[in-house]
């Protein structure tokens, strides 16, 4: 009976819990890591990306300071980054940054922008910026980084959205 309950509760592929019921996910989509077009970096390992998103790296190889731009809590993109890249929940992520700023190990806190358009424009404006948007929100104003040599949409790309559909 327990097994049956677990099977019943476990969402089918492509679906996830949303409120009291199910909602179809955007598991087919990926999250694109975007940087300014002037950034010479083309590829990052997932480990390097994690260090950047945890504030443990504060400079690009060309010496420019990394400015991290994130979306507010509750956004599916942010949830995907915390889950797939940072491997933390919201509380742990906030505590990590607060502690890092307190000890001085994190040089600057991330900028929070509420929309993909805002993220894209920020990245376009700030040469050292790095952010994330859904692949559908990417345009020519920003550069999409390869992660472990793969672009969003490639097989085995490691940052799937797997988030809930729009409300």
């Amino acid at each position, binding site marked *: 009976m327990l097994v049956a309950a677990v099977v019943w509760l476990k969402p089918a592929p492509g679906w996830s819990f949303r409120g009291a019921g199910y909602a179809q996910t955007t598991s087919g989509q990926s999250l694109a890591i975007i940087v300014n*077009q*002037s950034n010479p970096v083309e590829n990052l390992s997932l*480990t390097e990306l994690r260090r950047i998103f945890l504030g443990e*790296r*504060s*400079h690009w190889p060309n*010496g*420019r*300071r990394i400015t991290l731009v994130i979306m507010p809590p509750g956004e599916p993109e942010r949830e995907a980054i915390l889950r797939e890249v940072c491997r*933390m*929940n919201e*509380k*742990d992520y*906030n*505590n*990590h940054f*607060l*502690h890092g*700023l*307190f*000890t*001085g190990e994190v*040089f*600057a*806190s991330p*900028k*929070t*922008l*509420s*929309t993909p*358009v*805002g993220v894209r*424009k*920020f990245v*376009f*404006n*700030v*040469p*050292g910026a790095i952010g994330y948007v859904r692949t559908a929100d990417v345009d020519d*104003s920003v550069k999409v980084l390869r992660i472990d040599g793969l672009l969003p949409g490639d097989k085995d790309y490691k940052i799937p959205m797997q988030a809930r559909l729009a409300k």
Partner: protein
Amino acid sequence: MKSSIVPLTRTTVKVTGRIFKVLPMLLGVLLSTRVVRAQQAPDPADQDKQTIRMLLERVEQLEARVTQLEAARQGRPAVAPTLVTQQASTPAEPETETQAEQPSEPERMDLSKTLLRMRGFGDITLHGDNHKGDTTSFSLGQLNLFVTSDVSEKFKFLTEIVFEAGPDNAVGVDVERMLLEYSPSDYFNLAVGRYHTAIGYYNTAYHHSTWFQTTTGRPFLFDFEDKGGPLPIHNVGVSASGLIPSGRLGLHYVAEVGNGRTSRSPANEPVQNLVDENNHKAFNLAFFARPESVRGLQAGFSVYRDVLSPANLPRIGETILAAHAVFVRPKFEWLNEALVIRHAPFGLSHVFETPGFYTQLSKQFGSYRPYFRYQYMNESNREPVFPDIGLRHGPSVGLRYDASESVAVKLQYDYTLLRRQEAVNGLALQVGFTF
């Protein structure tokens, strides 16, 4: 030669007749179209003038914008000059940290402002023990205002301003940390001001906030100077730190030069904020590794060296050797540190050593985090500089409950053995918070 004249048949005559009827209409339409076109399209000369006028207006707009940007960016060269050319080709709208989109005219973000951020920490404790002379009391802990500011792309300011009640119940203010940091790369960061000396792990991982700490207080070894701690917790000087290229080993270094700790008299302010009591500077060198393969693990050591000048005593060489291995993840921590403080009076062969260590273990279960700590410190009875510390050792157990993301309630029991004194049983209930 064959004639090209086609004989008129009935059909052709009929068609031709229709054409003659339609032709005037077609001519009329064509003429009217030409007239309309002539009215719509300006004269080429007028068109050029209009274009020139528009371009001049655009140039004026751009010049005004450049002037505005230059004025705004004085003192903050955060935006690369190349952006100006990017703007000309691809306009972008401004974006603040909270707004989403604005349908305003194309404009660059204003990145010229220095951002002052403030975060507060505080705690209130009810504690009691059976130590002679102690009373059960409510205590205001340190009220800590932690302020940072992004001065520019590579400079940052950081300070901790702490309001704290002393043994006389009067509240005083201390600038516990004040640092201007210069960060040109991950491999080299320079900070000047007042900082926490990088001896071991705890002193730079936890500063003046109990909310961050699992337990109600710091280990004996890392007690603040004005609470009787044996270490030079604070220092005023220069600190360099950064990564050492070491691949997956994740090596870091810290090198510090500062005034060191006051030793002339216990009544003096322990941190030499303004004047060093001697010309010898305190040096500290620390190395630690954060291996990529074991996230959360950090292991390292440090060497601190200073010369102390206590009143009525010969100068004393102070060496502090420390080593640590900690494993810290959001839901689990295991801290282990050991150190020895060596005081070697000049001209004497005897060296006074104070060894100490602590181990601390905790695990998070939902909002609850039970913890255990055992600590030990043994100072010689004849210790020349800090004779009041003596021997202390014993366990502490406690429970931290995170009532919210910003409020933690802790209950801790301490059992402390002292040299030639009765063991102390202490109980503390603390609420720590950030705001």
